[in-house]
């Protein structure tokens, strides 16, 4: 359990660069959805990917820093309620750290299931609980509004985290297969 929160230099570097990628994708790489005026955030697939490889601290910081930075670039200030929710989602994604065999080059059936159960829980807590509650506490937004928004966001983010995150982890696992059996020639 203690291992889950171990932070070494590599974790920090992965966090810094992961947050840079998150920021960029959050602003520029959105997948248009069938519902007009909405789009899927590929960035959450990336925070889930890094969180699975580097743990909950990295996951939380990547989404928190990335979301805060892209808000700051676009709006001049972070919208804290959603930034915090992003951080919470990244943290929960990180619970998949060391629960899958992706580092050993395997990411199949059971691993995919584990990863997706965790990401669904993470997105649900972040967008159906944390974000709406903060919006109600801080801004007195109507509950019906924020929960509708939250549930929509949760569904969209579950889809994009599920698709992008799973495919990235499969691709990553493929790069790990040959290690350990390297011989010259």
């Amino acid at each position, binding site marked *: 359990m203690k291992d889950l929160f171990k932070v070494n230099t590599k974790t920090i570097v992965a966090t810094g660069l992961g947050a840079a990628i998150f920021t960029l994708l959050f602003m520029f790489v959105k997948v248009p959805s069938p519902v007009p005026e909405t789009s899927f955030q590929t960035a959450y697939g990336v925070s889930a990917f890094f969180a699975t490889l580097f743990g909950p601290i990295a996951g939380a910081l990547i989404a928190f820093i990335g979301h805060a930075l892209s808000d700051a670039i676009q709006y001049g200030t972070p919208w804290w309620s959603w930034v915090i929710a992003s951080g919470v989602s990244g943290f929960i994604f990180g619970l998949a750290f060391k629960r899958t065999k992706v580092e050993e080059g395997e990411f199949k059936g059971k691993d995919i299931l584990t990863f997706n159960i965790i990401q669904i829980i993470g997105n649900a807590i972040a967008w159906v609980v944390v974000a709406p509650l903060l919006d109600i506490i801080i801004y007195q937004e109507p509950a019906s509004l924020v929960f509708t928004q939250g549930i929509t966001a949760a569904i969209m983010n579950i889809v994009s985290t599920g698709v992008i995150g799973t495919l990235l982890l499969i691709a990553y696992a*493929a*790069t790990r*297969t040959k290690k350990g*059996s390297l*011989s010259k020639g």
Partner: protein
Amino acid sequence: MSEPAIIEFDHFTFQYYSQAEPTLHDINLKIYPGEKILIVGPSGSGKSTLGHCLNGLIPFAYRGEIQGSLKIQGLETRDLDIFKLSKVVGTVLQDSDGQFVGLTVGEDIAFALENDNVPTAQMRERVAKVAQMVDMDSLLSSSPFELSGGQKQRTSLAGVMIDDVDILLFDEPLANLDPATGKTAIEIIDDIHKRSHKTILIIEHRLEDVLHRGVDRVIVINDGHIIADLNAHELVSSAVLVDNGIREPLYVTALKYAGVKVTSEMKPGHITTLSTELSGHALQLWHEKVKTAAPENRNPSVLAMENVSFSYDGKRPVLQEINFDIREGEMVSVVGKNGAGKSTLSKLLCGFEKEDRGRILYRGEDIRDKSIKERAEIIGLVMQNPNQMISKPMIFDEVALGLRMRQVPEEQIAERVDKVLKVCGLAPFKSWPISALSYGQKKRVTIASILVLDPKILILDEPTAGQDFRHYTEIMEFLVEINRMGVTVILITHDMHLMLEYTPRAIVLAGGRKIADTAASVVLTDAEVIREANLKETSLFALAQLAGIPEGTRFVQGFIDYERGLKNR
């Protein structure tokens, strides 16, 4: 000299956990304080692993099994950790962008002190002092994006010297620098050595460039063994270099072509020390004999720029009035220092950016209105880093990607991919995952994924960056084959060997203008062009002068033609 060794390998063997065999075998080596040592070897020889053992990355970041002993300043390294070692051994890595972690020069130099909890005021003083030593003191608040490669490297150097380490370790310091900057880097290292008497280790495979200044010993490593431990003169006159896939200095090759037996008495380690008393005559005879018979390319024009100008912001011009005309089947290099406009030129050709003025002509026709996708069917671009192009796990899918996105029927795709895989020598790996390939093979995959669209012109950005002599030759000979099949090849590079040996013609850019467009042998012997484009005069030219041959440029051209003749035989 009974001073104790500062570094002592004693029956030292190292094996990575992920490897089936040791990477370093039974290394015995003593290095004394104040020595300047060059460590050479081909890729995968173990030379970088040796460096990692010295600075503590092994076993801190890379796990493995160590046998035997390695002592630094009399202390067994396995009892020290990476942080203690970093106070003795300062490492300058080859990727100066990766090593430059600070947001500004000052912060980056201060990095080690920050981690040591040195108070800010004291830190500023020490940073100012060290920055002065590497001539960066006027740029302390510059960000890495405002600096050249050489300046970034000097910052890295200052960042490790700030700890007043006794040993400086340079891991491939020349890999990312243009020729003139590389030459300066070697001079800076030498000056520091002379001034501070630190022990210096340089790991490189570009022997001739390091030997621009003197070294005490050269250690040759291959297959994890120390093959030779000689001074530069002895090494260059031995067969060790050729046998181990390390490129010997060009002037030495020329001497050999002229039938001269190179001996250590001739002091051939550096062109500046070489004595040509005995060889001058042989060189002259050879020079007379060599036929310069490069057939001129008389094909019709395939790609031309007419008065092309371009600017990103509408103010600062990046390219001005560029004119050139490339004929079908040519192999041309585009050279110039960073920021000269080389990559912008390739972006304009691919349609990634649109010229502000002037015309780009394909077979005499303006291609301004063609989209990026349409242009890719005429002009293909291969990026420097294959990892930035590869997006599929399997080779077949990666190569087929461009066709699939063009809705080509699947049977046709299979046929075309098979064909191009065969051309690229990748047919046996057709169903392999890309992750199992070597760097060179990955490079081939990216070339194949572009060739499959059947472009008439191929642009490659630094195709051989970071490659040792064997891989360099493999990649370049492969490109020559593709060129022979009728594809026009444009190479963006600052590798002088590459332009000299493989491209009969070089277009030189400086400050957004074309300053030369002629034979590579002319470019690399023209002092003015060399200076403006941050190139370096080829040692062949110096050799010609030493041997009293007045037509230096023709001598260089003769060498190229002779060598091509040997390869084609």
